[in-house]
């Protein structure tokens, strides 16, 4: 009997999930106050997405 769970995520979904989870972990580990945590999580998430999408576009000219 196989009970394997298989997910099919797109590149963007995988990046969003990864960025969100890591941002939450870093926010909780490095900040104490709830407001500070939320601000840090949002800021990290923004930077993850900005840099991820930025690197994606930077590679675009070399994709063909």
């Amino acid at each position: 009997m196989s009970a394997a769970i298989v997910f099919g995520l797109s590149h963007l979904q995988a990046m969003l999930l990864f960025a969100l989870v890591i941002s939450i972990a870093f926010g909780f580990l490095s900040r104490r106050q709830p407001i500070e945590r939320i601000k840090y999580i949002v800021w990290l998430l923004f930077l993850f997405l900005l840099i991820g999408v930025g690197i994606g576009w930077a590679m675009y000219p070399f994709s063909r």
Partner: protein
Amino acid sequence: MTDEIAAPPAPRADSRSEAFALGIAVAGWIVPGLGHALLKMWGRALACFLTVGLLVFFGAGMRGNVFTSSGNDAFDTLGYLADLGAGSFYFVARSLESNGPDVSRADGDYGTRFLAAAGVLNLLAALHAYEAARGRKA
């Protein structure tokens, strides 16, 4: 002047607290979040458990490569060390991935990174708990 002479070190208490901090770190490595839970840092404990658990769950679900000790090269060994960082969740990943890895698709490749990130994140959390137990971090 006399204060400098009259301040003897307390090696017994230091070694005890060091052993306690090491125990916290090992507990945090074996079960993600347990180190912080033992220090009554409930929010951080829950966050570590859930984030490492989610990365392992999705990484295994995306059929990422769960490295074993029988790797062929240095990258396999590094991947194995990173995966081992997840502690007991390494075995959860192996049990979840009953169909084996499939890195021929992008999903599987992402899954491999998710699993390695889970391990490294858990090691970071265990190190944080260790420092907190030593009184260096709030």
